[in-house]
């Protein structure tokens, strides 16, 4: 007799709850919403988002910090004809990202409160459903299950950008969809190939299978196209600035805070452990692409006139740190990359929300439309400056921790990697602070700025929550690193082991 209301039952199926509670509450919202009473819809969405967030908390409190393997596993045979299982499980890398996802969803719902006026239910439902699907991506241990979540997540994002986006939204959203689809279909081919080798779609079986180097390289490249587009790495990053600029604030937040991390996470879950020899073999190229993203894209950010575009480029540059951290193959680099992912989740979300605050009032994203905002919105300016500092990696904020760890790791690997990467501290500060100066300081530039009202309680709530997270992670990152530690150690030893067939290694 199964007690469906016991804590035990809940913990056994916690990942399913984490995925399906937001999805079902999104669907519920679609069916019950009354277009004439948007406030009811908003409260319902907030309740759904909060419950979804609460459901994910035990992942942290009941986590076994000593175990680097997969925990909270559950599963059953889903499509026996293809040997596909509904198999979920998380390790220390996935859990922080899952918590980030459910947290960000709540923020997005609150941030949209008065801003979204048309089709409120559809907007909220899109984000709730997307949140569940992204948690699915982070927790799937079956390749096809993972793929289904990965692709399905595109649908709500496509609609969010397309329906609630800016003037050029159709171009941006179709570009976003097709770019991502192209990469992920090649990944699907790689999955089918691996399935034919192993007879199953289990990620753990994929991790174990031995493959010759040329096959590994092809598989790695197939994964690379999927994940590099998502992260995005230079030179397949061009969809991101378009998508960010056109997306509504909530869409930008989710894109920057979580969607990009799907790519980073997937490198660690699929590309690197499945094809470790290819990862080592191609690491030079990967590092080169990361450094180009860090340095070159930072320079591109410097010349942007559009605030959202500037933050989008800054995101690409920061994600360059993540991929750099992955491919230098040491403990500091990898952990730094994970901290950087989480921290960037908070900071980029906050930055986009700040732009959203201004945009809601003035309806312009151009830097030149502003000037002297600090005079009329002092509280807001304080927050914005804090987040800008965090974005440029000031010590004491979360932005510093990840970048510093990655740079330390890079010195271990090669001094020049670290040398080039540390340029970001200069460029990052340059573009962020220059933008802050032009937008917030100086004389009041025009009549729009002169009549600005400072942030209201709702905005204060979300910005201060994010500020607390940014500072907490910056001062005391230990809870996060403790969580990832065991997993990272295990992953590194896994990556150090060659997966070439026996005859191959003996011949070399």
């Amino acid at each position, binding site marked *: 007799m199964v007690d469906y209301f016991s804590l035990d039952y809940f913990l056994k199926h916690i990942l399913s709850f984490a995925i399906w509670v937001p999805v079902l509450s999104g669907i519920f919202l679609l069916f019950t919403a009354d277009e004439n009473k948007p406030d009811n819809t908003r409260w319902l969405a907030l309740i759904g988002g909060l419950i979804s967030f609460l459901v994910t908390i035990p992942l942290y409190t009941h986590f076994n910090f000593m175990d680097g393997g997969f925990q909270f596993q559950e599963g059953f045979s889903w*499509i026996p004809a293809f040997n596909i299982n509904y198999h979920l499980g998380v390790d220390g890398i996935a859990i922080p990202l899952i918590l980030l996802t459910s947290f960000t969803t709540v923020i997005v719902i609150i941030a949209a409160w008065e801003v979204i006026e048309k089709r409120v239910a559809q907007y909220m439902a899109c984000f709730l459903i997307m949140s569940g699907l992204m948690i699915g991506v982070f927790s799937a241990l079956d390749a096809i299950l993972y*793929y289904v979540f990965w692709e399905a997540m595109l649908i709500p994002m496509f609609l969010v950008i397309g*329906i609630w986006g800016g003037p050029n939204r*159709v171009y941006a959203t179709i570009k976003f*969809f097709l770019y991502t689809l192209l990469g992920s279909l090649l990944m699907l*081919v790689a999955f089918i190939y691996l399935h*034919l080798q192993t007879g199953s779609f289990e990620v753990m079986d994929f991790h174990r299978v031995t493959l010759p180097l040329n096959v590994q390289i092809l598989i790695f490249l197939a994964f690379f196209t999927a994940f590099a587009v998502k992260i995005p790495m230079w030179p397949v990053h061009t969809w991101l600035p378009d998508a960010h600029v056109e997306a509504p604030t909530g869409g930008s937040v989710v894109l920057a805070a979580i969607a990009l991390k799907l790519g980073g996470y997937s490198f660690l879950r699929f590309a690197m452990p499945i094809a470790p020899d290819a990862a080592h073999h191609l690491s030079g190229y990967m590092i080169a692409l990361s450094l180009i993203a860090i340095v070159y894209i930072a320079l591109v950010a410097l010349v942007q006139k559009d605030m959202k575009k500037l933050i989008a480029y800054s995101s690409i540059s920061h994600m360059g740190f993540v991929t750099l951290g992955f491919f230098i193959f040491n403990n500091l680099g990898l952990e730094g990359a994970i901290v950087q992912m989480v921290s960037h989740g908070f900071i980029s979300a906050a930055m986009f929300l700040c732009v959203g605050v201004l945009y809601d009032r003035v309806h312009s994203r151009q830097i030149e439309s502003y000037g002297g905002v600090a005079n009329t919105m002092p509280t807001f300016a304080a927050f914005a400056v804090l987040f800008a500092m965090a974005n440029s990696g000031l010590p004491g904020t979360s932005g510093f921790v990840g970048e510093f760890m990655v740079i330390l790791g890079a010195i271990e690997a090669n001094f020049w990697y670290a040398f080039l990467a540390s340029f970001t501290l200069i460029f990052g500060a340059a573009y962020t602070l220059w933008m802050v100066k032009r937008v917030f300081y100086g004389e009041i530039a025009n009549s729009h700025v002169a009549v600005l009202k400072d942030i209201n309680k709702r905005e204060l709530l979300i910005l201060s929550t994010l500020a607390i997270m940014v500072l907490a992670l910056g001062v005391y990152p230990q809870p996060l690193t403790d969580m990832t530690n065991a997993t990272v150690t295990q992953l590194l030893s896994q990556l150090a082991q060659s997966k070439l067939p026996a005859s191959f290694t003996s011949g070399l």
Partner: protein
Amino acid sequence: MENIRFDLITALPEIFILCMAMVILIADLFLKKNNRIAIYGLAQTTLLGAAYITFTTHAPSVTYAFSGTFVDDAMSDVLKLMIYLGTSLILLYSRQYLQLRDMFRGEFYALVLFSVVGMMIMVSGQNMLTLYVGLELLSLSLYALVALDRDNAKATEAAMKYFVLGALASGMLLYGMSMVYGMTGSLNITDINMSLMSEPKIHTVLVLGLVFIVAGLAFKLGAVPFQMWVPDVYEGSPTAVTLLISSVPKLAAFAFIIRMLVQALPTLVGDWQQMLMIMAVLSIVIGNITAIAQTNLKRMLAYSTISHVGFILYGLMSASMNGFVYAMFYVVSYVLMTLAGFGIILLLSRKGFEADKLDDLKGLNQRSPWHAFLMLIVMFSMAGVPPTLGFYAKFSVLQAALEAGYLWLVVFAVLMAVIGAFYYLRIIKLMYFDEPTDHSPITAPLDMRIVLGVNAIALLVIGMMPQGLMELCIYAITRSLS
């Protein structure tokens, strides 16, 4: 005497529908215009009755009848049930459309039932001539259906084109069959296979025959380079008839190919594999790229059909048991998607308004979020995005092709699928991102709305749980081909 009774029982569903079609023709003479709904009811009852007969007489074993020219196996029964289901949906979706356009007549229903019999014979034929007769019965009924709206010049032109090209294809098919007959001395599928296995034949003649057979089949399927008729006929026909042409006959064509290539000519597998491969690749390329340029929804779906045919051929060219199972799965999924897709067009159409332009879908989300959502599912399913049925259809045929070693063809198909996604996305863009230009309410009857909703939601639900449908296809193919 016993033998004949046995034969008749094996073909009972066909006989039943044929008789009922006659009854409908006669009943139509005596019914007044406003009582014609009875004909519709009669046609639906016929399909239901046939389904009952097929279901109750079903046995997993293979039964031959009429001196081995007719077969009743698992595949034929499953496909026949699908045909009844599909046709029943077609009749339901098209009822109001026909009523508003003065085409709600007995002929329509009689011709549809005749075409159903044709399809059933194609599914159950075990002799080249039987198969051919089934195909002709189907084709002739369809030619007449396309031209049903006599005063419509476009429809008449489409019918003409369809007829001329269709007749050409039939001729080629017959010519190919005659060559195989010349080499093997038999028209019977099983005997042909036996004869080819037992002693060597002149390969050149056989391959020449095969070329004609494959070309004829490709015409009927609408595979490139024999696809010319597809867009024109889809666009010209009344939407109700387009719905019929584009959907269930593909099930019959699938069975036809299985009988002709897999059961009769498995010894020539190397040859027909190559032919199918070329057609598959071309169909995917031409179908997907040309679809982008279309402004007419029916034409766009015609090109989308061509690309789907390419994917079906990917499964068939793998020439493995899995390949055939997955191809069948793809065909069934395709039929479900097409029915829902054209169903939406029929739903939006009203008197004097066809709703077949892309722009007619503009702002559908604001007019009716529910129907926009249904179309969204159909489009994502056609594009092959999970968690819809279309994803598993594509996934499975690609898996079969990869298993057969066609790695680069699979990569190519995948790239083409991205191009394909573009024009499906454009539909969604029109429905969700644009403002409506037309605010008239949707006036479809309630039964149609409900069934259409179930049809489209099924794409999502089966997409999440495809095991049942897959098992059905495995059952049908393995019981019939082993």
